[in-house]
């Protein structure tokens, strides 16, 4: 299946786009993280420090990624 991921801040700038499509065969966040790094190797190092979110909530690496999910990749935050 294809998963849409949204990118923010430094990761968005490094990728040169706000959104990527990832071919993703297994169903969890950990597998998505691996697929993303393999398909976009120049982002791999930054991805290792990012958290993932689905439906406005952080999700752990063992969380399921539904087929129609939009997954947000959250670089280390710096608000305030």
């Amino acid at each position: 299946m294809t998963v849409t991921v949204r990118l923010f801040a430094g990761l968005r700038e490094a990728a040169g786009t706000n959104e990527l499509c990832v071919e993703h065969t297994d169903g969890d966040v950990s597998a998505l993280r691996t697929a993303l790094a393999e398909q976009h190797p120049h982002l791999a190092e930054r991805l290792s420090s990012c958290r993932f979110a689905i439906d406005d909530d952080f999700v752990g690496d063992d969380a399921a990624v539904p087929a129609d999910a939009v997954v947000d990749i959250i670089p280390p935050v710096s608000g305030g």
Partner: protein
Amino acid sequence: MADGAPFLITGDELDPAPVLAAVRDAACGAVASFVGTVRGNNDGRGVLRLEYEVHESMALRQFERMAAALTERHGIAHFAVHHRRGVVPVGGIGVALAASAPRRGAALAACREAIELLKKDVPIWKKEIFADGSHRWVEGS
């Protein structure tokens, strides 16, 4: 009950007064607040301005979750936080937050924890624009 929006992401200049008003309560004897302003230098470099990027729907959800956690841990009555998006000049306000409680200890402790939670778990990022025209995304703070 308090007046005004407790949680706000805005491109307009921030004013602490509505944040304080949002937590005022006749049952409370204390309102504590924190205001974050843009510093004109970082790591020895001159900063011209900041640009905040916000994942708005998630940031607002995180504010609600923060309020629930702070209420649970400190017994505060109300919590409010307003945060900027877009360009904020040096000296401008990036964030204003406030908590009210029957007594000062809870209100002060909740504010202290709130700004740390915000800097850890709310999807907002700052880009520093330097005097030489270069920029840098701040990651973690």
